[in-house]
């Protein structure tokens, strides 16, 4: 009976640790998705925005003029 209790405790402990690891990983991924760091993979996205500024297609926001 004691042996069975030990096994249950170990299994429950392992499940708790696994859940924590999963939850931390999930939140980390969500955080990285929310604050997404721009690298070479997003070069085309950023280059297009920069081009829109350089070409005058976008103007800085002021109260009077909106892009």
């Amino acid at each position, binding site marked *: 009976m004691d042996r069975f209790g030990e096994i249950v405790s170990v299994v429950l402990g392992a499940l708790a640790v696994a859940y*924590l690891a999963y939850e931390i990983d999930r939140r980390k991924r969500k955080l990285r*998705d*929310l*604050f997404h760091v*721009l*690298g070479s993979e997003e070069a085309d996205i*950023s280059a297009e925005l920069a081009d829109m500024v350089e070409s005058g297609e976008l103007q800085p*926001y002021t109260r009077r003029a909106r*892009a």
Partner: protein
Amino acid sequence: MTVAVPLTAEEPLKTESVSQEATLTEEGTLIELPARVRKAPRPRKSKLSGTPRFRIFVIDSGWNSVARRVLRHNFALIRRLHKGDPIYLLSRKKSTEFIRRHRSLIGRDPIIAVHDLTAMAWHGTAGFHGFHLHLGIQRTPRQALVALQAFARFLAKHRQSADLEAEVRTELRREGFQGAVEIFLHKVPRVIGG
């Protein structure tokens, strides 16, 4: 309006009005005074004080989301907090076209894209050059507001940073670590919400 200034005037003009003074003085040199004393025009400060460090873009195709409402309600404040950096608002049409060309962004808008001009001057868009705040993935007004505040704080705090990439990654690690601690303490993590 003209007034006469006596040649031998030793006493300064006291409390009499200009017109009274003009009638009291018979001889003297006439000088022209403007009818109303105007202050010299103050030089107008440029909206963008100093060299901008960032370029900020707001991309919003118009999903009826809580994030959109939070952004709209707080945009004026964000703008005032980051007067030194130009903010470019893409219209709904432009945003939609832009997102259609970059489909990985669908459903993540409103997006605040921040370009680090220092990094871009150094190596263009080849390496680290800024970050996106994907506000549209937040589901509650509180999450969206907290994310927006974290974003505003981060930009203000690291505006002079020599290595923004390192700072971003450090901050993310710190937030991740705090999130883990908060999970242990059964609290709601600060930025990413429940």
